[in-house]
């Protein structure tokens, strides 16, 4: 069970691009002999793909002009010369 825990940690490091070469090798060796961990990594990668597949939302019509209407009126900075 501990070895799965270690592998899990390495999977997340791998997904974050945070893994050393030695760790990458260690993970690879483990995955070759552990179907459960292979499946787990596959599910994690698929999860990321599913998240990225969600549609992008657009701001409501007229958003920018509503923001512009609410901006404080620009005050000219007055310098007093002595």
């Amino acid at each position, binding site marked *: 069970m501990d070895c799965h825990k270690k592998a899990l940690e390495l999977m997340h490091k791998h997904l974050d691009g945070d893994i050393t070469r030695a760790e990458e090798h260690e993970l690879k060796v483990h995955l070759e002999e552990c179907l459960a961990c292979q499946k787990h990594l596959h599910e994690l990668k698929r999860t990321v793909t599913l998240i990225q597949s969600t549609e992008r*939302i657009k701001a409501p019509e007229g958003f920018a002009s509503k923001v512009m209407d609410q901006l404080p009126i620009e005050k000219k900075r007055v310098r007093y010369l002595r």
Partner: protein
Amino acid sequence: MELIIREKIKQVKKGDQTAFEDVVMFYQDKIYQHCLRMLGNQHEAEDIAQEAFIRAYVNIHSYDERRKFSTWLYRIATNLTIDRLRKRKPDYYLDAEVKGTDGLDMYSQLAADEKLPEDELEGLELQTYIQKQIAELPSKYRSIIMLRYLEDFSLQEISEILDIPIGTVKTRIHRGREALRKKLRHV
């Protein structure tokens, strides 16, 4: 694009208010989407997203041009959404950490493996289902998952946006991915 935005910001700093409209146009969809996904309510999302741009404008002189503008803008928007979420009691309750559980919250103690009844699952479109699962993540995981996978920030940038250590960002992104894996493995 960063270059054009950089130029626009310089103009805004010099007092050219109209240049700010281009900045709003460029980021409005992203910032609105972020607020909507965080708050789950269109009216509130529009309100908070507008407030974020107004604050950015008012505080533009405190923006350091050596840094990425988007990181600075997201930081303002994220702080506003977090403030808004805190004011909501039920959500706060679910997000609250349970004493003595090392960062576990009420949410993670609910059964994550629980499958929806089949007919309910069939009735929902996949897109809607995925969005629902993201929306139901505790907000501290949801914000990071979105910043990373929908808005493409690096872990370092996320740590700057949320003002939390990079180690915390990593822990939360791991937990967020695991929570979503459990919810999405059957789809």
